[in-house]
Structure formats: structure tokens, C-alpha cells
């Protein structure tokens, strides 16, 4: 029997480390492109201020990148350490994008980042520019492969169950590669990264403009960030809307949870703007609805339904019952009865095997599950609604606020008045946390919304965990939290110090603190 506490602690550890990792990733994705754009400006115009911009923002990029790399190793290790049955069960498919990510993307990014920092005097301008672009391309390709892996967890196509090896095996790589969920997720995620990079540069530049320091430097940075950010936030919102238009059953469950759709509405469904979802009573308190809007977003039509939990849970119960039969057939096959009849019967049923495995949490012998246990498994075949409902709304709200900020900043810099309105500068400064809030909420929607599955409809999270002890996970969780806290302190300390110093930290002798001969500020 699997220890429930080990599963919960492992989930907590994975969630914490993934959310922490993603504090650094989006900034890497976005800032690498901004660096490439700035350096392109340098190579084309020959103005050294653009080189200084590349170097200064590159310094901050480096501080951030170091932690992205550090926390990324944890992610790769954890599938094996804490989710070993998962690794066995789907490694044949899931491992492929991870390995290709290493070969195709991470090598590229990491090799050229060395030249980005150390190669300025060692090569021609154009060669160095190529290195910078390759870093940006590498980091984005890296995101592509990781999201192909993640997309497959949400919508596992292109794979088949093999009863002999007791695992899923790859059937079609092109299905995995062109998985629609992965495609939409990739563009949405990298665009969110560009927004993060842009907001970071916009915000820090606003700080210099408010302080009236290094104005030409800050104004150019502000302008690049405003235009790049506006284009990016528009893509995030449009593509986020695209990802609302979903495929796959688990995505439908996620949609129902995000919208707190306890009951299937008559189409076109209304959009719930505000509510307190109640999981026990399966209804919402204090609901505020906008008619038609959800139907339009989710189905792009006036007559298609958005399925609610009143239909999803009974459907899942049916599939759990079929899953029990599938499991019984699997046991028969594994006991040695490999007659064509049994094989055919299993082939018919195998798509419900995952639902049968949901019962493992409630009984050792799936085939002897009682009615009560089946009902309980069906009730728990959906994620908790309230956290999803709220995180989704926070994400969307943050997205729209950023849209307004970027729009205002863009108009201002287009009018060449970026040292003008202080209100816009303050708004840009204080909008700094928004892209991170939105991204973290987005991941909670995506991954918490996938529960109780680790691989949608194939493998329950509960089954995926390793056979390890509680003490081991508590030990690792404690160590990781202690390390991550210390690293965060060092990172924030350096970031603050270098953002306050600004381009004076380059030691060129041309910027604020060097010119006025004041002592450098301490963080």
C-alpha cells in the first residue's frame, strides 16, 4: 500500500519546487529576447549606449539565470526520486522530449551564454550578436520541449498501454509533437515569459526615470520594453483565450472547475464573474454571471454546451466501473492467460484502465471495490474547484492590468515623452510583480486542475509516487526549503543592489554614480 502522506508531501515538494523554478524561467525567456533586440540595435546603429544596455540588462539576466539553472536540476531529478512509478509507467514517452530538450536546446543555450558573458572582446560584433540570439532561441526551444512533455501529461495522445511491460509506450511521435494542447501551451507560456521580461525592464527603467538618473539609457530601455511588452501581452491574452477552447476530457474538467460549473447550463453558457464555490454542496454562493460569455469563449458557438460536473461525475463513475473490468482483464493477461479473446476484450476496455486505477487509493483489490468506494472515487475524480476558480481570475485580472500598463507606456514612449507622466511611470514600477503573479496562478490552474491525475485519464497521481518513506521526503523538503530560502535572499539582495546601481555597475565611467562621484548605494 502506498503511504498517503508520502504522496501528499511529494506533491507539496513538486509544487513548491516547480513554482519556485518558474519565478526565474519566464524572466530568462523574455529577457533573452530583449537582450538580443538591444544588441541588434547596437550592431545596426553602432551606438555604444545599446551595448551598455545589453551588458547591464545582461548582468541582471545572469543573476536570474543562475537560479533558473539551479532550480531546474531539481525538476529533472524529482521525477525519479519522488515519482518513480510515473517514471517507469510513462518514461518511454515522457523521457523523450526531456532528453531532446537537453540535446537540442539546453546545450545551445548554456554553451552560448558563456560566450555572451565572456566573449565580448573575443569575436566580431556580429558573431557576438549571433551568440546572444542563440541563447534566446535555445531558451525558447527548451520551453518548447518541456511544454511538449507537459502537454502530453494533460492530453496523452500518441501512446499505447503495453500489458507485458506494464507501461505506456510510444506509438506516434508526431502525435506527441503536434499535440494541440502542447502547441497552445507553448505559445501562451513563452509569450507570458516575454511579458515578464518586458515588465521587468519597463519597471526598472521607470525607477531610473522617476529618479531622473541615466535618462537616455532608461528612456531607450523603456521604449524597447513598452513595445515588446505590448505585443507580448496581446499574444498572451489572445492565445490564452485560444487555450480556453480546449480538447481532451481533462481539459473539459478543468474548464468546468475554473468556471465552477456545477450544473450544465443551457447554451450559450453564462460566465461566472464572481462566486464562492462550495465543493460539498456542489453549488456556488453569491454568484455573479455574465450571460452568454462563457459559451462564446469556450465553444465559439451559441448552441454547444459547456459540460458541468452534474454530468462529468456520473460519467466518470461509469468509466470507473469499466475500469474495474479492464483491470480484471489485465490481471488475467499478466497471470498468463494471453488468449486472443482476453487480449481483444482488454483492447476494448484499456482506455478506462486509468479510471480503474483511481480506486487504488481506496482499496488494495480494485476488482473487489464496493459501491461506496466507487462513488467516493468518482466524487474525487475532479479537482477542488475554489482554488482553481480564484487563481484563474487572478491570472486574468493581472493580464488585463498589464495590458493597460503596456498600452499607456507604449503611447507615452511613442510620443517621446517617457520622462513625462509620472503616473504612468509609477504604474509601470508598481506593476512589477504582476507577470509573476499571473504566471504562478496559471501553473496552478494547469497542474492543480489536472488532479487527481498525473497523466490525464491514464495514471492517477496517487499511483505515481515512489515507494519511499515519510522521513525521506520530510528531510528533502526541509533541505530544499532551507536552500531555496537562502538562495532567494542572495538573489534578491544582488538584484536590488545592481538595479539601484544601474548602468554605473558596468564600470564604464559614463553613468550616474560615476559622474557625480557619489559613493555607490548599498542594498
Amino acid at each position, binding site marked *: 500500500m502506498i503511504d498517503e502522506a508520502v504522496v501528499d508531501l511529494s506533491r507539496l515538494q513538486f509544487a513548491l519546487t516547480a513554482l519556485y523554478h518558474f519565478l526565474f524561467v519566464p524572466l530568462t525567456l523574455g529577457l533573452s529576447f530583449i537582450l538580443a533586440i538591444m544588441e541588434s540595435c547596437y550592431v545596426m546603429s553602432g551606438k555604444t549606449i545599446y551595448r551598455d544596455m545589453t551588458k547591464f540588462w545582461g548582468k541582471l539576466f545572469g543573476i536570474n539565470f543562475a537560479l533558473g539553472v539551479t532550480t531546474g536540476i531539481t525538476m529533472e531529478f524529482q521525477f525519479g*526520486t519522488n515519482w518513480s512509478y510515473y517514471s517507469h509507467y510513462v518514461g518511454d514517452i515522457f523521457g523523450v522530449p526531456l532528453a531532446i530538450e537537453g540535446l537540442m536546446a539546453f546545450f545551445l543555450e548554456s554553451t*552560448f551564454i558563456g560566450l555572451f558573458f565572456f566573449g565580448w572582446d573575443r569575436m566580431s560584433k556580429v558573431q557576438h550578436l549571433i551568440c546572444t540570439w542563440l541563447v534566446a532561441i535555445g531558451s525558447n526551444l527548451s520551453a518548447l520541449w518541456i511544454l511538449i512533455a507537459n502537454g502530453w501529461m494533460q492530453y496523452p495522445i500518441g501512446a499505447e498501454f503495453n500489458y507485458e511491460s506494464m507501461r505506456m509506450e510510444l506509438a506516434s511521435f508526431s502525435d506527441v509533437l503536434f499535440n494541440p494542447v502542447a502547441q497552445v501551451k507553448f505559445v501562451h507560456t513563452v509569450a507570458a515569459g516575454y511579458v515578464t521580461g518586458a515588465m521587468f525592464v519597463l519597471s526598472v527603467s521607470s525607477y531610473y526615470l522617476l529618479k531622473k538618473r541615466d535618462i537616455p539609457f532608461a528612456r531607450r530601455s523603456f521604449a524597447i520594453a513598452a513595445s515588446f511588452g505590448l505585443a507580448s501581452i496581446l499574444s498572451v491574452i489572445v492565445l490564452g483565450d485560444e487555450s480556453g477552447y480546449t480538447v481532451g476530457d481533462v481539459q473539459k474538467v478543468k474548464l468546468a472547475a475554473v468556471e465552477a460549473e456545477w450544473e450544465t447550463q443551457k447554451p450559450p453558457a453564462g460566465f461566472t464573474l464572481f462566486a464562492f464555490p462550495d465543493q460539498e454542496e456542489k453549488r456556488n454562493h453569491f454568484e455573479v454571471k455574465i450571460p452568454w460569455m462563457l459559451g462564446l469563449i469556450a465553444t465559439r458557438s451559441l448552441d454547444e454546451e459547456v459540460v458541468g460536473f452534474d454530468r462529468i461525475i456520473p460519467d466518470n463513475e461509469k468509466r470507473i466501473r469499466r475500469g474495474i473490468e479492464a483491470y480484471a482483464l489485465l490481471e488475467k493477461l499478466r497471470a498468463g492467460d494471453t488468449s486472443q479473446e482476453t487480449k481483444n476484450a482488454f483492447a476494448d476496455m484499456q482506455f478506462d484502465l486509468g479510471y480503474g486505477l483511481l480506486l487504488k487509493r481506496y482499496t488494495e483489490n480494485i476488482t473487489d471495490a464496493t459501491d461506496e468506494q466507487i462513488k467516493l472515487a468518482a466524487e474525487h475524480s475532479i479537482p477542488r474547484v475554489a482554488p482553481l476558480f480564484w487563481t484563474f481570475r487572478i491570472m486574468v485580472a493581472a493580464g488585463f492590468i498589464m495590458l493597460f500598463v503596456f498600452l499607456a507606456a507604449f503611447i507615452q514612449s511613442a510620443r517621446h515623452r517617457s520622462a513625462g507622466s509620472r503616473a504612468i511611470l509609477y504604474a509601470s514600477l508598481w506593476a512589477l510583480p504582476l507577470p509573476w503573479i499571473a504566471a504562478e496562478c496559471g501553473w496552478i490552474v494547469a497542474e492543480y486542475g489536472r488532479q487527481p491525475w498525473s497523466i490525464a485519464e491514464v495514471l492517477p497521481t496517487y499511483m505515481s509516487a515512489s515507494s519511499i518513506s515519510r522521513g525521506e521526503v520530510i528531510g528533502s523538503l526541509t533541505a530544499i526549503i532551507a536552500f531555496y530560502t537562502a538562495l532567494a535572499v542572495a538573489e534578491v539582495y544582488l538584484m536590488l543592489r545592481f538595479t539601484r546601481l544601474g548602468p554605473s555597475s558596468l564600470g564604464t565611467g559614463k553613468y550616474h554614480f560615476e559622474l557625480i562621484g557619489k559613493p555607490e548605494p548599498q542594498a
Partner: protein
Amino acid sequence: MDYETLKLIWWILIGVLLIGFAITDGFDMGVGMLLRIIGKTDMDRRVMINTVGPHWEGNQVWFITAGGAIFAAWPMVYAAAFSGLYSALILTLCALFFRPVGFDYRSKIDDPRWRNMWDWGLTIGGFVPALIFGVAFGNLMLGLPFELDPMLRPSYHGSFFGLLHPFALICGLLSVAMLAMQGGAWLQLKTHGLLLIRAQSITQITAGAVIILFVLAGIWLLLGIDGMHIVDTKPVGDKIHPLMKTVAYGNRGWQANYLQYPLLWAIPVLGIVTAAITLLLSRAESVLAFLSSSLCVACVILTAGVALFPFVMPSSRDPNMSLTMWDATSSQLTLGLMFAAAVIFVPIILLYTAWCYRKMFGRVTKEYIEENSHSSY
């Protein structure tokens, strides 16, 4: 391509990735280990760190990719080893945390306490993973106490302290000495002056240690450790899983492959010879010393790999459940696909990595660091 060949290719490719990791990331881990030993002043240490500054990140990807490749090509090995050696892996992970931040953050603030702290971090980040990887390899030779249930769920029945068998500790020290030698040999290429002389001495000392520890581990293996061999199995080119074979103890010290193909003895012998060449050439020929040190690293790892072949992860709890490169692999489609990816990308990686090293060729000097104080590590 038939399944059997693909399985064999993946054994070789994972070997290539692990050796690539030990040779490249090995030298920057070695530099980390030596940082406090031969770096007497802050400037010494900055020079040392900047010799690996442009490269350590790319080097570390050998490790990450080896992990990803084991996940994809040998999922069961990845699952059983990483969950079984849980505490050891978490310890390695925590030690590795120090490296990216250590390299990047250390010299950004001019404060002796801050820098000293990260120097310790870089030392730990080099020493601890090297030790644990060696200990882990030693334990593979001894067999690990894991088993698989009928659903092929791995479970481990030992503890972290159970890994600290004296033989495994010798392997751990061998690994530490080897990477320190590799670090020393690298510093010979990239430094000058007093630091160069110290790097030469430390390479010689560690190369001597490598010879002694390697021979010691070899003798112990031959005299004191039972290997395993497969008694009965289905054809290795078939779809097989780890519960389909019979394995027996015997094959004293894992030497069956060497006895069957005596030419293979060249690998451990070459391991000793290259370590000796590194020792002898350290004062005179730094390029050759680095090449022979790298070759030594490859030979030592290969010696262990060939000894275990076809085993990857022998089980001491139930030898029949040992994982081999024939039966713990991915499907034929996955192996074929990944092989194609490797054929395309590995040459490209080698090409641009070589270009990167060529661009950064030359010794790092004190003057360079002083001039570029704001952009160097």
C-alpha cells in the same frame, strides 16, 4: 535497425554522455574542489573561477542530458535508482545548488566573508557530487537492495548509511581524486605563474592517488566481491522486462567479460598508464597532461561499465530482478527515435562546443581580471 542493436547503441550512448560529463564538468568540479587548496589569494581564486567561467554551464548540460537520456532510454533504471538512492540524490542536488550561484554571485560583491562563503559552496559543489557518484558506482558493483513488485513498481530496502561500504568509499575517493586531477590538468592549461606551479603539483599528487585507488579498488573487486551473471533469459532482442530472467552470483569480481575478450584488459591498463602519463608530463607538457587525464577519466568509467555489462543495476535483494541494458530499456520506437536525435545533435553540439573553447582559448591572467573586474566572475 533491430532492437538488439539499438539497445547496445544506447548502452554506448549513455556511456558517452556520462564520460562527456566526467571529462568536461569534471574539470570545473575539480577546479571547485581545488579552489581553497591552491587558490591562496582572492585573485588566485578569481583566476581559477574565470578559467571555467565561460564553460561550466555548457559542461553541466552533459550531466542534465545524461539524466534525461537515462529517463528516456532506461526508464526503469531511472525510476529504481533515483528513488532507491533518495537521500544520496537529494544530498547531491543540494551540493549542486551551490555551483551556478557560486560562480555567478561570488565576485559580484567585494566582501571577504561573502566571497569566502561562496568559495566553500563551490568546493562542496565539486567534492560532494564527485564523492557520491563514485560511491554509487561502487554500490552498483556490490548490488543494491531493491526489488520490483508484479506491477513493476520498484522499492528499495536499504538506507543511506548502507551505501557507505568500504569498497564503495574507495570508489568515491577514486572519483574525487580523478576529478581533482582533471581540474588540476585544466588549470595547467589556463593559468600561469605561481598558480600554474601549484596546479602542476596538485595534478601530480592526485594522479598518484588515482593510480593507487584504482588499483586498490580493482584488487578488492577481484578478491572480495561476487559478481553476477545471467543464467537464463529470453532472446535479448525481444521485448523483455526485468522479471523474465534468472541471475546467479559468481563471475568473481565481475571479470567474465574481460576473461571472454582479453583485449578488454587494455581499458583498465590504459587507465593506469594515462594516469601515470599525467603524473609525468604535468611539469612539461600541459596539453598532453590534460589529454591523458581526460583519457584516464574515460578509461576508469569504461572499466566499471564493461565489468558490469550487460548489468546496469544489479539487485542484491533478488538478483533475478537486476536491471540490465537488455531488459530495462524503452520500446524499440523510442530508442530508434532518440538515436536519430543523437545522431543529428551530438555532432552539432561537439562542433559549437569546440568553437566556444577555441574562442576562449588562452590563459587567464591577473591583469585581465583587474581590467575586466566588472564583467568577470
